[in-house]
């Protein structure tokens, strides 16, 4: 059994290195391997004292951040302290009992660490194989969701911000177009809602901007916008936007054909990128 090759104070504190990235280690074995590598010590001759010290420092940090994560790490801490204690005992009896050196209390841990390291290496090699394999295209391939020649835009339900932005653009254009405002007959929101419903029932989907075509005054534009907001609230229509600043399209709810992509489908595809159904789009 060797003495500690490096005095404990020569080890820098882990606290400086890992102030936040606690989730980096998946388990106690990962953390131990990291400490061994960081300190450049021999895995077969781990200086238990400084490594344990660093390990516990890290554990303190971890508990500060996330108490739940520490369970498995605590078991390892106990193991380390146990090894440390066992290593101290034979040293006191060494003069009387030579054979105390034959069994190293670190052996079991070292075996586990090497095994763990081996599987990590295996996982990396497997990952390499996976990368090569994913670059081999067979047919038919389930990964295909669409041919690049036929672009499709993924639409998401437009939020209030998007609507306001679009309306602002409509107002700006109207300012140039309308010129002198002629006070006309004021249309109520209810009437406008009915008009819009009528218009939407004629087409599958309508561009947001197009709905403002007939408006003849600023007030009229605002009436249309308020009517649209009301219709969204009443779930009479749904508005979808492709991209953050993309065009907004308005769909009537409950249309049997050409129904817009449901919000759920859109969300899922964004999260996983796996949903293959959303290649179909209303258009």
């Amino acid at each position, binding site marked *: 059994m060797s003495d500690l090759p490096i005095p404990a104070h020569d080890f820098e504190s882990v606290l400086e290195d890992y102030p936040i990235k606690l989730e980096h280690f998946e*388990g106690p074995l990962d953390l131990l391997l990291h400490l061994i590598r960081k300190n450049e010590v021999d895995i077969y001759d781990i200086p238990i004292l400084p490594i344990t010290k660093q390990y516990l420092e890290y554990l303190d940090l971890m508990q500060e951040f996330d108490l739940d994560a520490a369970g498995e790490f605590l078991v390892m801490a106990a193991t380390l302290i146990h090894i440390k204690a066992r290593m101290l005992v034979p040293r006191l009896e060494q003069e009387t009992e030579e054979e105390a050196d034959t069994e190293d209390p670190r052996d079991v841990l070292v075996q*586990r660490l*090497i095994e763990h390291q*081996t599987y990590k290496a295996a996982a990396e090699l497997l990952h390499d194989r996976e990368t090569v394999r994913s670059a081999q295209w067979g047919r038919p391939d389930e990964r295909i*969701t669409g*041919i690049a020649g036929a672009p499709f835009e993924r639409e998401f339900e437009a939020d209030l911000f998007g609507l306001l932005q679009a309306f602002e653009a409509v107002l700006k254009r109207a300012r140039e177009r309308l010129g002198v405002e002629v006070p006309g007959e004021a249309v109520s929101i209810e009437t406008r809602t009915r008009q819009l419903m009528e218009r939407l029932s004629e087409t599958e989907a309508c561009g947001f901007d197009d709905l403002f075509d007939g408006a003849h005054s600023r007030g009229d534009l605002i009436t249309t916008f308020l009517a649209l907001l009301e219709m969204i609230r009443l779930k009479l229509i749904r508005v979808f936007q492709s991209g953050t600043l993309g065009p907004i399209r308005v769909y009537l709810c409950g249309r049997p054909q050409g129904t817009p992509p449901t919000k759920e489908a859109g969300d899922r595809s964004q999260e996983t990128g796996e949903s293959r159904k959303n290649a179909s789009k209303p258009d």
Partner: protein
Amino acid sequence: MSDELKPIIEALIFASPDPLTLKTLFRLLDEEPPEDVERALEALQADYDARGGLQMVQVAGGYQICTRPEFHEWVRRLFHEHSKQRLSVQALETLAVIAYKQPITGPEIAEIRGVNTSAVVGTLLERQLVKVVGRRPVVGRPFLYATTREFLNRFGLSDLGDLPKVEEMAEALGMEVPLGLATPGPATESLPFEDASEVPEDPETTPPEQVH
């Protein structure tokens, strides 16, 4: 004979959605002597080895015709997206443990990994990369897990003997790896449930030979 067989086999392998096994080939071409089929297959393999953009690979116990990986960047342009859901490091490492130690129980995996792995194993089951192949006759009768055909397919392995070797790992690590640590068990041998009647109805407990 082999001259006629070669294009037929090529067509079959090309048209098959899954890697075409030798067994299936024999069945489809049962009027031909198996030696001829094998010989034609060899000739076909040689053709593909000399070919440009395509290659014939042995994967998941079968043959497949696919593009060469070096043309990935070009082929990729054809498609909007292709990214398979990536496996986390933890999932990959757990999968490695199962691949080399199979059949293995949940507690045994956790022992090697030093962490609770039931959630990760659940993910791997869901992705059909591992399956339940039986139970260990110990206290609690824990499930035994093994890798699937999909696992072989995803990682481009023809069988379990094709897993990265100990020497490769030693090279990657830059140190010696104790022998016996990472030697996979016999190839895709299925372990029957010791008593099928006791096994609860579970979609995961289907016989391993079944193609999903």
